[in-house]
């Protein structure tokens, strides 16, 4: 590895926190979900980097599982987003605040 592994990790951290910022600042649920996908991918990048560093392919397995889970989660998430917002005038999580207190 020519590039020090910590650079990869730093890159993954940047992506991860961009994801967090996305969750915090966006109101469109779809974009929030995308930001969460971004966070999963950042974690995957870290996993694969570490896997390479340790030469331990369990990181690959883990990343594979994460991708699978992310797919399942995306399916469910999008289904929920659809049922929540199909009737709503705005696709905006701020408007979904009936439960509070």
């Amino acid at each position: 590895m020519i590039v020090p592994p910590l650079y990869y990790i730093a890159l993954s951290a940047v992506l991860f926190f961009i994801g967090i910022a996305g969750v915090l600042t966006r109101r469109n649920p779809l974009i929030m979900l995308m930001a969460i996908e971004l966070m999963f991918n950042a974690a995957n990048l870290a996993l694969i980097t570490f896997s390479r560093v340790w030469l331990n392919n369990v990181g690959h397995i883990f990343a594979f599982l994460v991708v699978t889970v992310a797919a399942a989660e995306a399916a469910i998430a999008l289904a929920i987003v659809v049922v929540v917002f199909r009737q709503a005038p705005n696709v905006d999580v701020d408007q979904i605040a009936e439960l509070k207190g």
Partner: protein
Amino acid sequence: MITFATLSIILVASAVFAIAAKSPVHSVVGLLVNFMALAVLYLSLSAEFIAFIQILVYSGAILILFVFVIALLSSGIGPFNVGPDRLPKLLIPGTILSALALGLVIRMLANTSFTPEPRIGIALGPIGAANVFGSIGDFGRALFTLNLLPFEVTAFILLVAVIGVVLVTAGESHAMPPMKIHRKARKREAIVKEHH
């Protein structure tokens, strides 16, 4: 190093674009670029199988799903409307908070010494070669032997996804008519009442 730098710039830029874009469709495009770049990065880390999976599943399946939903949600009611911002003050603190956390992590990374002792179990090799680190053979063997349990669990996770989506949306078919009609009906009732 240059590859890494280029990819990093692409990754960060596309990620920022994805979360900052006005339209979700733009976000999807940003994310697509991001995922592609990630796949390249994975290749540089000798993870060829994961790189393919990344393109197949993420770019091929998940993002398409997103596009579908965007289309579905915007079909009936035009482009996405946004209601009043209930937490207008969250934008800057949210960004600052993320930046702060990032700063902390980067500082940590800068100060740390990372001294892994790689296990010599399987050799590194060129991308595409069989039975080298990150190859499909290597991956598959690990998946079906030592990691059998996690693999089996994923089966149930996918089942949950299928049944769950059916369950959530099945309720929908019997659900109340869309809200607009509902409102109209209510208005009509009110008018009838007034007449009385």
